[in-house]
Each structure stands twice: as structure tokens, then as C-alpha cells.
């Protein structure tokens, strides 16, 4: 659509377009000193501040006396009348609509076919609070919110550096979501920047409402269950990632910021490790590695031992398991599979249920699954213990929950056929798959075998700060 020189025509056109949108407001204005100077201010109620519209647009235009003598009224209005910190001349209809729904006031002056977009943004958003999923014991309690403006501001506050670059993109053909790619120029590799920029520009989809959609669309291995982009709701975490030479992608409408590249060892790192003493940080990190192994291999090992390699069991354990399984109708494999699936269902139900009845549901689930199923001989006690331990361990690494579930089920199925050989084959398959993933020319398992002295200090252990190197040599340019 093209804009018209005639104010009434522009007014009618926009009225027609937004006739079913009750939130778009049209304010007709006339300068009190020059009544021939007419204008229309169009804005979306709820995205602008009412007082800002009055103070920036309505009052200045109506009450401006020098306007009547201006040679170029539009230029005069832009430079001397309207009182916003950001006024842009709009030439494109798509751009105009995008700005309207971003919280700008679209200002049409009679006789001009180039409206002004006046920044009067005051969207409703929640305040900065601690992220629910990334709680910290001793670290900062700030978290990103849904507004991209606040999120970039939080980053800029932490990185007071002229090398911090924030490149803007608009993704989603219908949603026109503002997206910002942040990186530290001179620290982040040029190839990574170019590759990410290219992938973002290649995104062609109707809607982008979450950074996870962006992550999937730019993912190196789209069908792998393991993620190659990290995400965080914490500005301190994202700032540290940028200092390592990574890129952050911030999208409007979601507090999740994705960082890339994301390597396998980052699943086991937490911001809390750096807020506490390095001994305890090391213990926490080792516990995460152990939890990962237990979550994936414990059910399969139990099945392999109970069915195929019974000789491994000590005598008393053998008697305990034999007695427990004596009257259970299901096979060990079916028992574990059914209970694993039920455990996941219980977890999903607990996550979706309102907190008011969540506790009741947990108790019912525990009683039904635990006590009564065992007493009715539907399931054996060792199976419940194995699945419960495995499920608890998978909660230690919530980011890897989906991948761990798939790996756990896959190895369980193979172990049910060929025992411990199946467990080993499954482990080999996982290692081969992980080795095959390449993220921006870097192997996914690159850090699992550190190749420099300093990098040993931040992989399996959390070394003292004096030994930690901030930049990753495969990510940064080294300056």
C-alpha cells in the first residue's frame, strides 16, 4: 500500500485496515495557531504510554506557535515540535505497521506522504525477577524478561565495552519479531559471526515466538536430540558466554536467550559453580557427570544383570532381587519400560497441573505407583528404586532431559535383547553420534578431551579462578 499526500485518504485507508481492531486509536489533531495544519496520530493502545502520547505528540503539535511559519512543516515538526527521543521518517507500509505494533505513534501530516514514527513505547511487561529454572544460591538474582529492550540493556550494563555489537534482525513473516544477535567484536571468531548471520537471514517462516524456534532452525544437526545451542535466562551467564567468544541471540517476547556454539561439556556447567568455593564447585560438577551416567545406564544395567549376566550379582543381592521378582507377572524389560513411561507421565502431569492440586497429585502418584503397585505384585521394588534413582538423576540436568530419556530408552531396548553387550553397543552409538556433531567447525566433544593446560581447569573440575582462562581458544581470536 502506498501513502497518500492527502491526510483524509491516509486516515480512511488505515481506518479500513484496522476497522476490526479496537485497540488501534486514531487521534485527529489541528494546530491551534494554524488550523490548516492538520494531522492524525495513530497508535496501538496498550503498547504506548498514554501520558507519553500526550506529552510527545498531542500537546506539542496542538500548542506549537512557530509551526505556522515553518517553511517545511514536516521537518519542523520532526525536529522541533514532537518531543520524543527517537523519531523516524517512514517510507514503507510494512515498516509502518511494524513500528505501530512496536509502540510507536504513526504521525501523518496533511500534504505529506511520509509519516513519522514517534517513539512512545510503554509496553506492559513483568519486572526483572529471578528465573524459576535457574535459581542461584549466591549469584545474582536478575533474569531476562519478555521485552527485548530490557534484555539488551541488562547485557550492556554488564559489558560496558564498545566492542559489544548488537545486530538487529526481523524474523517471522507474520509476527515480525525483533531479534538481536549480540557478540563481542574482536573476541568472537569472524567465521562464527558470518555463519550465524547467514543462518538467521535464511530463516523463512511465518512466526517466530520463541528462541527455541530460532535454535531449531539454525541448528547444525537438526535431528539430533542433543542441543547445539545453549539457553539461559540469566544476564550474568550470557555475559560470560559472550566473553568466551560466543554469540547470543535475543528475541522479543521470550526471556530465553540462546547462545552458540554450545558444546557437550556445557550441559554439566552451572553458574553456581563459579559463585561458590572451587572445592564444592568441583564436587557439584562431578556429581552432574555421575548423574548423567546413572540416568542413562542404570535401568539398562539392571535389566542386563537380571536377565543375562546374573553371575555379576553378589549373593545377597541376588536373593533380594529374586524374592522381589518372584510373583511379578511382567518381564523385567516390560516392567522397567512401563514404569519409565509412567514416571515421565507423572512428571508431565506435575509440571502442567496448577500448584493448588499439584501436591495432591504427587502424593496420589507416589502412593499409586509405589505402595499399591508393589503390594498388588504388579511391579517389583527393585524396579521402582531403579526408575526413581534414574529419574532423580535426570532432573540434575534439566537441559538434557529429552536427550537422556531417548538414550535411556534406546539402551534399555538393546540391553533387553543382548544384555551388557547391548549396553556397550548403545554407549558406543551415543559416543559416535556425539563425535559426529560439528558446531561451527568445532567438534561437539571438543572440550571433553582438553588440549590446553588452562582448559583442564574448567571441564571436569572447577579450578581456582587464577587458572581459569575466560576465552576459549577454538572460539576466540585470541586478543
Amino acid at each position, binding site marked *: 500500500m502506498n501513502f497518500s499526500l492527502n491526510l483524509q485518504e491516509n486516515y480512511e485507508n488505515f481506518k479500513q485496515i484496522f476497522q476490526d481492531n479496537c485497540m488501534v486509536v486514531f487521534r485527529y489533531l489541528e494546530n491551534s495557531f494554524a488550523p490548516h495544519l492538520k494531522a492524525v496520530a495513530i497508535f496501538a493502545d496498550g503498547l504506548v504510554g498514554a501520558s507519553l502520547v500526550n506529552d510527545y505528540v498531542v500537546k506539542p503539535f496542538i500548542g506549537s506557535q512557530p509551526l505556522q511559519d515553518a517553511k517545511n512543516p514536516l521537518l519542523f515538526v520532526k525536529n522541533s515540535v514532537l518531543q520524543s527521543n527517537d523519531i523516524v521518517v517512514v517510507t514503507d507500509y510494512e515498516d509502518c505497521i511494524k513500528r505501530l505494533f512496536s509502540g510507536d505513534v504513526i504521525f501523518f501530516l496533511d500534504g505529506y506522504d511520509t509519516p513519522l514514527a514517534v517513539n512512545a513505547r510503554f509496553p506492559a511487561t513483568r519486572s526483572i525477577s529471578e528465573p524459576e529454572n535457574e535459581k542461584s544460591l549466591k549469584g545474582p538474582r536478575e533474569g531476562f524478561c519478555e521485552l527485548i529492550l530490557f534484555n539488551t540493556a541488562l547485557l550492556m550494563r554488564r559489558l560496558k565495552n564498545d566492542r559489544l555489537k548488537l545486530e538487529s534482525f526481523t524474523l517471522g513473516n507474520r509476527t515480525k519479531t525483533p531479534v538481536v544477535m549480540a557478540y563481542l567484536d574482536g573476541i568472537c571468531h569472524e567465521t562464527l559471526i558470518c555463519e550465524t548471520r547467514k543462518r538467521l537471514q535464511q530463516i523463512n517462516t511465518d512466526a517466530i515466538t520463541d528462541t527455541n524456534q530460532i535454535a531449531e532452525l539454525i541448528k547444525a544437526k537438526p535431528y539430533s536430540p542433543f542441543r547445539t545451542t545453549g539457553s539461559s535466562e540469566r544476564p550474568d551467564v550470557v555475559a560470560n558466554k559472550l566473553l568466551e567468544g560466543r554469540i547470543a541471540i535475543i528475541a522479543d517476547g521470550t526471556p530465553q536467550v540462546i547462545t552458540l556454539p554450545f558444546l557437550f561439556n556445557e550441559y554439566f556447567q552451572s553458574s553456581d559453580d563459579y559463585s561458590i568455593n572451587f572445592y564444592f564447585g568441583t564436587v557439584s560438577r562431578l556429581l552432574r557427570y555421575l548423574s548423567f551416567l546413572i540416568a542413562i545406564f542404570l535401568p539398562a544395567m539392571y535389566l542386563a544383570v537380571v*536377565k543375562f549376566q*546374573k553371575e555379576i550379582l553378589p549373593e545377597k543381592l541376588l536373593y533380594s*532381587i529374586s524374592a522381589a521378582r518372584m510373583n511379578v507377572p511382567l518381564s523385567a524389560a516390560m516392567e522397567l519400560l512401563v514404569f519409565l513411561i509412567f514416571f515421565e507421565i507423572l512428571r508431565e502431569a506435575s509440571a502442567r497441573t496448577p500448584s493448588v492440586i499439584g501436591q495432591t497429585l504427587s502424593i496420589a502418584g507416589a502412593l499409586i505407583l509405589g505402595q499399591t503397585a508393589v503390594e498388588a505384585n504388579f511391579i517389583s521394588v527393585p524396579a521402582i528404586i531403579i526408575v526413581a534413582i534414574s529419574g532423580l538423576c535426570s532432573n540434575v540436568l534439566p537441559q538434557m532431559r529429552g536427550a537422556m530419556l531417548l538414550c535411556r530408552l534406546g539402551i534399555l531396548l538393546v540391553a533387553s535383547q543382548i544384555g551388557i553387550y547391548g549396553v556397550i553397543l548403545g554407549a558406543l552409538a551415543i559416543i559416535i553420534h556425539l563425535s559426529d556433531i560439528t558446531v561451527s567447525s568445532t567438534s561437539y566433544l571438543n572440550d571433553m578431551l582438553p588440549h590446553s593446560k588452562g582448559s583442564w581447569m574448567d571441564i571436569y573440575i572447577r579450578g581456582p579462578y587464577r587458572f581459569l582462562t575466560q576465552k576459549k581458544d577454538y572460539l576466540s581470536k585470541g586478543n
Partner: protein
Amino acid sequence: MKAFFRPGIVILLSCILLTGCSRSPIPELGNVNVVTGFFAEYFPEEQSYRLSLEIADFSGYEKSSDITAKRITAKGKTIAYAFEKINQISEKQLYISHAKVILLGRGFQALNLKNTIDFFLNHPEINSDIQICMTQTDILSEQEDSDSSFFAPLSSLLKRETLCGFPSLYQLYQKENQSFSLPVVSLNDATPAISSSAVFSNYQYQRTVQNDIS
């Protein structure tokens, strides 16, 4: 599609190669009879063997000390035949990897032990560290009314006595043309005790030595 081609071939080959494994009749724990020990007796006048297996019974199980036992006995011309008959009698498949002791009766003093050792050692499931001992009396008949396990305390006793150098099954196998001694077990107030040692040379019984622990 190309991305799935290679993994698809691997999965297809794996499925073809592994399908046979699912048909193997491997019973699970809970569906097997756990054998705790063997008692073998030879009758020279009949030239036949009697084999008794002690099976752990978990029906009243609360903790591991509550293990009770039941026995399955069969006779045969050879020890292998007797074992096969027991397999047929038993309602569940026998699991003998956790069997701790082989108790040989007095009749084996008239026999060369080599065949008996070969039979047990050739069984794929048997633990090669299983202990072997002898008895001069029919201990299991004396214990017929008792449902507590005889071989569990006997195995604990033999583990202590291994300091005295009594060989296990595999060690016996290596003692061809050598001398060795086996502990002789008797009941002392319903608990097993080692009363003497039976000396063998080249798998043939020589004599019994009282309280000989060397």
C-alpha cells in the same frame, strides 16, 4: 533422506543380526531355581549316582537370613544323567552359577574323581571357584526335616578354611598327578564342621587324616 541412509542401513543390519537373540530362552531372575549347592553320592554296589540339589526358597523371604531351602533329588547311571533328570523334575530352569559347594559322599572314595570334576567343570554356568568337600555320612538325609539351608553356612565355613589350602574346583582340575586334600564335613549339633581331611593322589582316595589342616 540422504542423512538417514547410512544409519538406516546400520539399523537394518543390526535388526537382522540380532533377531536371533530374542528367541533365546534366557529366564529372568525370579523365574529360575537358584541352586546353593550339590550333594553327590555314589553307590558302588549299584554303580549308580544320586544327585541332590539344594534350591533357595524365597516364599517366606523378608531378609537374606530368611532363606529356606528345598531339595530335588534324582538317581542315574551317570552323574550327568541324574542332573538331566533333576532338570526335568524342576518346575523352573536351574541357575547354578551361584552354587557354592559340591559335597561328595563316601561312595566317591571308591571312584576316580576326574570324571566328576570334568562333569562339573564342563558345565557352562558353574562357578570355577566352587568349593569341593566330602562327607562320611548321608548329611542331607539327616537334614531331611529341616528347611533351612545347609550349604549357606557350609560355604561360609569353607571360605574361612580356604586359608588352609583346600582347592576349589578349578584348582582341583590342575592337580592331575598331584596330591591334594579335601575337607571332610560332618554335622556338629546340626551345624556343619570340618572334622578331618581326605587325602587324594592323582584323583584317587588314599586315606583320611584327622584334624589335618595342611
